[in-house]
């Protein structure tokens, strides 16, 4: 029976894509044989079922997220510099007015103090500075705490997290990070979770990820342990889409806005710091020293700048700074010199020059 059926024509017939003449012909064919009639009946069933969507989507929640993200992008563009209540620089950019509360502008100043400014809907800027809560992990230590919505944060050494306690938990849960942090975000589709660093903006629903963006580093890095996040570069123009990351994905954003994505990274290594382990995988020695100093609150320096580009691979649990320094020195064929609180790693061959 299947052999003499013109499936393509039947398709056109059911789709309403055939001419009047063709439709009549097919109609006659259908009526000519009860088997044909039955066939088309079955096909109609399939045709109808095919039109029904099989999944439901929460569009109202998605719209709220969309508004939150659009507002957060606006504030990025319409920055107004404020220092001590006085307005500097250019005025606010023309922005769309979204239904709901007035947009808030979160500002970063190089000197390290932060203000929040509320933008009145009419477009004029009124400065209502509100101090931010600050949580800090000193160099040599990490700090763990929980935010009001249940999000858990682990700060890496030498890192600071700032946020407005009165606004956190509103339509946008917004945080400012300087340094390194691991987030286990409490799931809430109605409240966008957003972290800003000097180089990155990461938006998320409810997932587990870590950001590393220290001022001294060459780039910001975001790695996802589970769930999905969207990461944008602060430097990039907001018309470019964000980078979507899922479990095991990592993105590196440099100050120029260049984006490098790696998928399927070794999470145990990338997130080793959250478990109190130090892991180096083919890491340039210059970076090893920077991380060592942060981790231990040490002052290790390289006696010869040429050492900085060598590579080092090692993994440590709970060990002393002295052990790591000693092994690093050995790996670069150097030795350790102590000068007061400073530790110097010098190449072996410099022995003659020492006085």
């Amino acid at each position, binding site marked *: 029976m*299947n052999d003499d*059926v*013109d*499936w*393509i*024509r*039947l*398709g*056109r017939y*059911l*789709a*309403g*894509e055939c001419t009047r003449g063709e439709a009549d012909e097919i109609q006659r064919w259908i009526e000519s044989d009860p088997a044909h009639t039955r*066939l088309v009946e*079955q*096909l*109609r*069933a*399939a*045709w*109808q*079922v*095919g*039109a*029904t*969507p*099989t*999944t*439901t*989507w929460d*569009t109202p929640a*998605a*719209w709220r*997220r*969309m508004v939150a*993200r*659009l507002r957060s*992008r606006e504030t990025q563009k319409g920055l107004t510099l404020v220092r001590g209540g006085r307005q500097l620089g250019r005025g606010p950019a023309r922005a*769309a*007015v*979204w*239904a709901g509360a007035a947009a808030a502008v979160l500002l970063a100043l190089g000197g390290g103090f932060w203000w929040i400014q509320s933008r009145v809907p009419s477009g004029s800027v009124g400065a209502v500075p509100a101090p931010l809560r600050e949580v800090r992990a000193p160099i040599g230590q990490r700090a763990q705490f929980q935010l009001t919505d249940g999000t858990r944060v682990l700060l890496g050494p030498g890192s600071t997290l700032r946020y407005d306690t009165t606004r956190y938990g509103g339509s946008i849960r917004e945080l400012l990070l300087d340094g390194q942090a691991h987030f286990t975000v409490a799931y809430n589709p109605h409240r966008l979770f957003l972290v800003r660093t000097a180089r990155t903006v990461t938006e998320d*629903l409810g997932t587990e990820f870590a950001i590393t963006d220290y001022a001294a580093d060459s780039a910001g890095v975001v790695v996802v342990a589970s*769930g*999905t996040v*969207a990461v944008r570069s602060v430097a990039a123009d*907001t*018309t470019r*889409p*964000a980078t*979507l990351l*899922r479990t*095991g994905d990592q993105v590196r954003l440099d100050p120029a806005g260049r984006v490098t*994505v790696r*998928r*399927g990274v070794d999470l145990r290594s990338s997130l080793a710091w959250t478990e109190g382990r130090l892991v180096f995988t083919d890491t340039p020695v210059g970076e090893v020293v920077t991380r060592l100093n942060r981790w231990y609150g040490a002052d290790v320096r390289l006696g010869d700048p040429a050492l900085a580009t060598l590579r080092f691979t090692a993994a440590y649990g709970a060990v002393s700074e002295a052990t790591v320094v000693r092994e690093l020195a050995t790996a670069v064929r150097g030795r350790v010199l102590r000068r007061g609180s400073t530790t110097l790693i010098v190449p072996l061959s410099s022995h003659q020059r020492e006085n």
Partner: protein
Amino acid sequence: MSLTQAADEARRLQEEPEAMEAIRAGDSSAFETLFRAYHAPLCSFAYRYLGARDLAEEIVQEVFLCIWERRESWNVRTSVRSYLLTAVRNAALSYLRHERVVRRREAEVRDFHEIVAASPEVRALEAETVVAVRQAIGRLPDRCRLVFTLHREQGLTYAEVAEVLGISPRTVEVQIGRALKSLRKGLASHRP
């Protein structure tokens, strides 16, 4: 397509140029209308490519964000619907191109028990038949299933399906024909 659906569709197509003009001018409520109208079908479409709900939603969000960011120069050649579907398809393919890890398709089995917003014709069918058809659709080869879904679920014409997928209308016809043949076989084996 029923008469009321056709009338809605005709009205929407007539109103499209005004809606687009409003969005270009920065009218956020026109943008909201667009978002609410197309969000669900676009997510379903993205889901067909990506096999993961959260990713599908994020891709659709990014498409809308881009439209808003570039609204001043936003223009579509045919219809808003095919523009949006093409944009979502491109974004999904772009994502898949960079993905090394094999993606796991979320089990479509759990969807079988949701008969969502079914038309009276579908509600009249037995639940078993609906399940059997859904399974048969799920077993169609990828390209065939995409064409069938775009035409049926998204309501595109053959020409629009061809445009969104970047294939010829003849290929669309052939794929729909193949889909019908496979579905019929699937149904025939289900019924006693």
